[in-house]
């Protein structure tokens, strides 16, 4: 996953999000990866692997107003398995049948994100398979999907017109300590011990640093912190 996200971070513009969504689809072997967002001015953008026909149909029919995924995720922040949503109304069922006919798949998992100043985004993977297969897949990859969703959103926020210059990715003193000792090859237990904190607390500092660094895992985060000169070993 890291090379894909690395590319995404380096690349410019919407095209980068488009190619990353295709690469992520292939990496996980799911039918579709879609990311769409509404910026703080209320304008909509999207990218992903749905067919052009389905995308056009969706926009033309203004399915935003019917789509249970949108209705169930707007203004919320917990990830959602589509099965948990309310598909019981007639318009929703019609919409779902049409979506399946257009190859969207009968399963889906969406991560809603509430960004700053009313920005809102949804990162979705969808697939055609039975419930057990989907449950096992989402269980195995839930964390990745949440992290990827936020990586996409960080990129999308760069397009915001009045975006303040990139807030410095400065790490807090504790995060610098944690990253530094990890870079020196200490185990987590040794780092926690050295800093006189529990391993759970250490995990939080590592996690917070990982997010600031846009990394998918600890190793990647340590490498980034070093290459950016945030830690010196």
């Amino acid at each position, binding site marked *: 996953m890291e090379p894909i996200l690395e590319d995404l971070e380096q690349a410019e513009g919407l095209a980068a999000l488009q190619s990353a969504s295709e690469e992520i689809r292939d990496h996980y072997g799911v039918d579709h990866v879609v990311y769409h967002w509404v910026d703080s001015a209320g304008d909509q953008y999207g990218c992903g692997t749905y067919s052009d026909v389905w995308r056009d149909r969706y926009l033309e029919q203004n399915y935003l107003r019917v789509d249970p995924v949108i209705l169930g995720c707007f203004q919320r922040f917990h990830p959602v398995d589509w099965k948990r949503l309310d598909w019981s109304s007639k318009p929703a069922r019609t919409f779902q049948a049409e979506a399946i006919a257009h190859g969207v798949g009968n399963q889906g998992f969406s991560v809603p994100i509430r960004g700053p100043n009313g920005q809102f985004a949804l990162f979705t993977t969808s697939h055609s398979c039975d419930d057990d297969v989907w449950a096992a897949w989402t269980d195995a990859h*839930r964390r990745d999907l949440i992290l990827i969703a936020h990586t996409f959103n960080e990129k999308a926020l760069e397009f915001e017109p009045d975006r303040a210059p990139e807030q410095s990715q400065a790490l807090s003193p504790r*995060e610098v300590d944690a990253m530094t000792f990890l870079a020196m090859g200490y185990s987590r237990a040794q780092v926690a011990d050295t800093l006189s904190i529990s391993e*759970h607390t250490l995990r*939080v500092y590592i996690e917070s640093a990982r997010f600031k660094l846009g990394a998918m895992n600890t190793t990647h985060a340590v490498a980034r912190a070093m290459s950016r000169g945030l830690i010196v070993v």
Partner: protein
Amino acid sequence: MLRYVYASDLGDHPKLARTMFRDRADQFKTRLGWDVHVDKDGYERDEYDDLNPLYVIWEEPDGSHGGSMRFLPTIGRTMVNEHFGDLISGPITSPVIWECTRFCLTRGAGSHVAAALMLGGGEIMQNFGVEHFVGVFDARMVRIYRMIGSSPDVLGSAGEGRDQISVGLWHFDEAAAAAVAERAGVPMERSRQWFDLAFGTTSRRELARTA
């Protein structure tokens, strides 16, 4: 029973909402003496209640509030980062860390209520991929957390004795969850039903109906 309610849906539970905000006033202003704002209706509400947080609420059989807590994602605005940043050496921000604040128990609530709330927190962690909660708590809560077997790691504190305020960290632990469920007197199966009631079910029967 446990209810999981976004602020935008509190209107569906008027009595629960009313009594929750009043119980918060009673706990944080009257009993703990925190510097919080209580409005003309007797509600303790702050700026974070306006960010559409998710509340986990213990509802008594008569529909009133027995205890509650409030969740917000740490990638957005949080009380911990905006007001207690100096206690934790910089902001804590991550998609897999949520903030939990305003842990409140109605006057005279049994310890099973606090345990039930913790059980709800565990459901959130397991189902939503949340790995930690970070929150602010008062010295007087320490005993309650210990009693229900869910003591936080302390990231930092300010003040002394009874007035000490700390930022703490909770994580999920399967064994602890079973103990918390036991203390709450709520079978895991029941807990799962309450969760599904709020967030929808993944059961096959439901899918058959909708597919």
